[in-house]
């Protein structure tokens, strides 16, 4: 067989995607990490430069009294934000998916489309809508609680340190519940009917069928939903920025990693922007997100495969 000519066409096919992706995604991510190892210097005559400082920015972030409490606050708020999504959004999404996969219910496609609607809307619009609804001025939240005889519980939900973060987490859950719902639904629909029928013939209740047959079979999707929730939550920004501004009030009680990153790198009000410290916070976020993804890939997914074998 004669030697084939160099396959130019393969290069032509691959080059645009690889170049675009490398230049505007991989390079910025790596360059951001590199920037996190530098600090601005002001030389004589006011010229600005950057000096290599190694891991000093990370040490400052973790120990300096100006930074460490902020980072800790944002991280722990973010953990709560994520926990609420895992405990409310994903179970509710799963329950809706189970109902929507049941053959007993007619009009499933209509329900599915309607329930998913908030998910396609911009977080900015959702944030403002809920700001209006929760505003004591309009009084809608009081009226709705009144329906259940609970109006005395009404509070300025977004204005109090004790309730703002939980309220915003629930708004985010309300908006994003459509995503786990759809993913779980797709997995549930993929389970062969014969399996469910066999379990029912053996006398299993609907509850038993769910825990013994359906849930074990959708475990891979449970993992995907969890890791998507994790990545999305530790990267969140828009909702807090829209409802509470970059200052993440009241008194930083809703500050999460995304808003801390934005404030640090872009500056806000009296605080000037600090790109290298911003890059450092992005570095911490990358570390958090990657460790979540790695736990999923090597802890969860690998164990699943072993069970399947």
């Amino acid at each position, binding site marked *: 067989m004669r030697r084939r000519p160099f396959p130019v066409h393969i290069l032509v096919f691959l080059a645009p*995607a690889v170049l675009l*992706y490398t230049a505007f995604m*991989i390079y910025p991510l790596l360059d951001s990490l590199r920037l996190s190892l530098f600090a601005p210097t002001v030389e004589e005559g006011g010229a600005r430069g950057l000096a290599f400082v190694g891991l000093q920015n990370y040490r400052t972030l973790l120990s300096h009294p100006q930074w460490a409490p902020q980072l800790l606050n944002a991280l722990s708020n973010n953990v709560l934000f994520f926990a609420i999504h895992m405990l409310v959004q994903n179970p509710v999404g799963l329950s809706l998916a189970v109902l929507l996969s049941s053959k007993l219910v007619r009009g499933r496609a209509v329900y599915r489309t309607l329930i998913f609607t908030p998910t396609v809307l911009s977080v*900015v619009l959702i944030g403002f*809508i809920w700001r209006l609804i929760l505003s004591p001025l309009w009084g809608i939240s009081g009226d709705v609680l009144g329906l259940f005889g609970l109006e005395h519980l009404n509070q300025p939900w977004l204005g109090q340190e004790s309730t703002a973060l939980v309220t915003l987490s629930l708004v985010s859950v309300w908006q994003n519940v459509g995503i786990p719902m759809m*993913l779980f639904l797709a997995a549930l629909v993929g389970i062969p009917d014969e399996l469910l029928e066999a379990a029912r013939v053996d006398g299993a209740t609907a509850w038993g069928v769910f825990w013994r047959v359906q849930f074990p079979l959708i475990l891979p999707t449970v993992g995907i939903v969890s890791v998507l929730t994790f990545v999305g939550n530790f990267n969140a920004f828009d909702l807090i920025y829209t409802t509470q501004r970059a200052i993440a009030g009241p008194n930083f009680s809703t500050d999460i990693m995304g808003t801390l990153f934005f404030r640090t790198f872009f500056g806000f009000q009296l605080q000037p922007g600090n*790109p290298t410290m911003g890059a450092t916070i992005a570095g911490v976020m990358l570390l958090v997100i990657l460790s979540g993804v790695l736990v999923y890939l090597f802890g969860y997914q690998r164990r699943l495969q072993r069970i399947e074998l």
Partner: protein
Amino acid sequence: MKRPAATLAAHTVLLFYTALALFPVVLVIVNSFKGRLAIFRTPYAPPTPETWDLAGYRTVLGGADFPLYFRNSLVVTLASLALILWVSSMAAFALAEYPFPGNTLLGLYLALGIMVPIRLGTVSLLQMMVRLGLTNTLLALILVYAAAGIPLAVFILTQFMRQVPKDLKDAARIDGASEYRIYALVLPLVRPALGTVAVFNMIPIWNDLWFPLILAPAERTKTVILGAQVFLGQYINDWNAVLAALTLAMVPVIVLYVLFSRQLIRGLTAGSVK
């Protein structure tokens, strides 16, 4: 097998949840057509001839250049989608078609970006755009969204390209078709997948706040979402204007969603369940 009690219970739960999902959206749209007094006195009533008032829409159209923002969003979204579909389909074709050395590795490299948010590279991206003179241009947004969309698009399209029958391509090769011709031949066969990728990328690009805020905040390059965000922040005490702006920004997306919900749902499931 009929179980009326179970069916009724399921419908009750689903109806309740549907109402919960739609109530805030409907409330805003309905009240945007009412006068200020009616918004506060009878927020749950539909507009009547007495309460009908378009003051909010007049403020919005006078206070912010929404037609321009819509045009910007449209240009950014369509151009990013075209770029994603074009470069990703070519790369996916190469990955699916030719078993060259490093194929798997390149596939993995391109897939890296599925899980890592591009936002974390923002500091460097902003500096890069400043150096290239691209700040406050729509091109900056298009390039960033295209780069961010490539990983998942290549991943999904490669799966679909692999399913195109080999006979078809070999027959074309025997007829003397070039490899580029064969790519053009395969493309229409994976049209459903292209549609899925398009719709799936469309919504996050249209809805993004972060990059317009950082890379292109100038008045003439504002997208609808950034424009709405700034407008809503300034007019927060003018309820008519706020409700009208929210409605104007939501309705086109809802219409698009109703038109494309099937593809969107397919994209959502194809992208992550595989």
